[in-house]
């Protein structure tokens, strides 16, 4: 036990002596929390529309005016043919081509219905579908609000059609701001980087430099050496987590709705699981470069499949299975539930069991493999 104390003393001395690591401990949570929620924003804004108006009536003028007023759309051009409009899209100056047929106003008044053609650049799938839906919504609203009197007067039958009006309420994030979605996710990112990367690299560094040889000929026990490596990063992870919570409060005014102790409990267990993962990586690699690549490979998969950026529910079944097999997924879910919904322990007890299982399995595997290889 006393020897473990000396090992910890040495580790902290080395970590604190490394200026870059020290700077990163404070810079990483602050900068990531400030930049990422603003940058990683899925709101679709500033969709460029090019209009091919064959009608040139007052009605189409009003419709286009309404389109531009919403703030989501910017009319970047008005041309006379579809082919010309497509060139705008090719030059990346427009996302949507809206074509209004000739005699649009006259036919609408006469028949009560008219068609508008929308061609959407779908290279960015999300932007295309969300933007298209917005545009549809605005046109529908326009046609209902403005022209109902004319159209219905001409066709009384249409007035009798029952209309189901859907209204909705957004809970837990009433203004649908992405920062509430992203900030808890970034806590996960921070802890994952500390737990997964730093521990793996640190242990492999000892292998690479050869200091592990010198340690191995001393009477020090394996568990003492491993604990001496993992505990400092566990503590650092919790410090970074705390800094992250403070930054979230100061910059965004986000305070956890659920109990703080529950967040810390999960963070503590999650870190143990990730440190075990880092240790496991280090047992399989002989150099820091190998460890980097291995860790990076798994981290990318963990991150992209964890539901940090895209909802796991919309993944195919096989992807959901893989996603459930990473510790990151459960932690992302819990931290959002606790911070935003205020879930209590009872709501997340199963996730807690998962995290415990990950911590036990990863560490046991790592320690077993560590014995075998040295």
């Amino acid at each position, binding site marked *: 036990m006393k020897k473990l104390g000396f*090992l910890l003393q040495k580790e902290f001395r080395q970590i604190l*002596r490394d200026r870059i690591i020290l700077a990163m401990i404070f810079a990483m949570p602050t900068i990531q929390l400030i930049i990422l929620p603003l940058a990683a924003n899925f709101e679709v804004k500033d969709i460029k529309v090019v209009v091919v108006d064959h009608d040139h009536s007052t009605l189409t003028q009003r419709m286009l005016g309404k389109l531009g007023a919403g703030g989501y759309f910017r009319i970047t051009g008005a041309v006379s043919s579809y082919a010309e409009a497509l060139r705008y899209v090719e030059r990346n100056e427009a996302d949507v081509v809206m074509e209004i047929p000739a005699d649009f106003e006259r036919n609408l008044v006469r028949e009560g219905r008219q068609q508008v053609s929308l061609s959407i650049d779908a290279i960015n799938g999300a932007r295309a579908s969300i933007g298209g839906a917005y545009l549809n919504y605005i046109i529908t609203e326009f046609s209902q609000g403005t022209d109902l009197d004319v159209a219905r007067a001409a066709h009384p039958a249409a007035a009798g059609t029952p209309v189901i009006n859907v209204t909705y309420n957004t809970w837990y994030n009433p203004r649908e701001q992405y920062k509430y979605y992203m900030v808890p996710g970034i806590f996960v990112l921070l802890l994952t980087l500390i737990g997964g990367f730093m521990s793996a690299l640190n242990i492999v560094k000892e292998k690479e430099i050869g200091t592990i040889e010198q340690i191995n000929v001393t009477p*020090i026990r394996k568990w003492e050496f491993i604990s001496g490596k993992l505990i400092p990063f566990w503590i650092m992870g919790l410090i970074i987590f705390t800094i992250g919570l403070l930054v979230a409060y100061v910059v965004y005014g986000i305070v956890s709705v659920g109990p703080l102790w529950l967040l810390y409990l999960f963070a503590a267990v999650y870190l143990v699981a990730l440190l075990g993962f880092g240790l496991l990586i280090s047992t399989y690699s002989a150099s820091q470069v190998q460890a980097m690549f291995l860790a990076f490979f798994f981290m990318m998969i963990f991150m992209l499949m964890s539901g940090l950026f895209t909802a796991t529910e919309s993944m195919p079944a096989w992807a959901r299975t893989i996603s459930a097999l990473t510790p990151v997924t459960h932690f992302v879910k819990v931290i959002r539930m606790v911070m935003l919904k205020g879930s209590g322990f009872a709501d997340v007890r199963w996730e807690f069991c998962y995290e415990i299982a990950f911590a036990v399995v990863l560490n046991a595997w790592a320690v077993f493999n560590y014995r075998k290889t040295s």
Partner: protein
Amino acid sequence: MEAVVLDGITKTYAGGKVLAVDNVSLTVKPGELFGLIGPDGAGKTSIFRVLTTLLQADKGSATVQGLDVVKDYQRIRQILGYMPGKFSLYQDLTVEENLHFFATLFGTTIEANYGIIREIYEQLKPFKDRRAGKLSGGMKQKLALCCALIHKPEVLFLDEPTTGVDVVSRREFWDMLARLKSMGITILVSTPYMDEASLCERIALIQAGRIMQIDAPEQIVRSYPVRLYAAKADDIYGLLKDMRENPAVESCYAFGEYLHLTMKSETADAIMALEGFARERGHTGITVKEIAPGIEDTFIRLMNQKTQ
């Protein structure tokens, strides 16, 4: 009780494809300064790693101070000091921190065993707050020796401690080893430098994982079975080629500014015969003399016998 015993140790790598140590047996007496002499890749480091409990041999057994390297590895680690060939201390810790750290791992302090490292550490003291990575080569080596000694080991293993060290530091280092030996520490040292062999009490000549001879350096030199001649001419390379064509010459190799030669049969006029042969081939500035063989001559002779 012998300090170190190796009995039929065999070690292979790459699943048995590479034979590193081939059935090696040797003993080191308590308080002895024993040298493993051999070129790079002879298996010296593998033998060290088996003895320092870092590596398990495929076959054979080994003991250090009577303790088995496999069964009693925990107890062996308390009593051995190991200095690997590659500098492997923490470069980002200072001289003093490194020493303090290794002392604590053995449950001791710098003060408790200061006597044993005093002479070496005094030279390091002016740099005690410098990071180990910033030391010169000779200083690093002294620090590594201090760290290997700080727990007062009974047996000291030094793997090629003088490789890459300048001539003055090498001599200093061997003086330090002599002092440590006088304190009663058994020392097993490996080196690729034949000239260092004579500084050991006993040596083992090792080549391609096999021990060729074990004895005191003087004995090994004395056991050289034939007369050895040195020859020189203005065109030394031409002379080497010509001498190898001489049917009376058994072996001929370059050794510094001379060629070393042995004859197939001992004759009283060997010097005259060699001189005459060289003159016949048109060499100038010829010198031929009989010399006393060194360790390297023995090594080369044994090596040639093995390969034939």
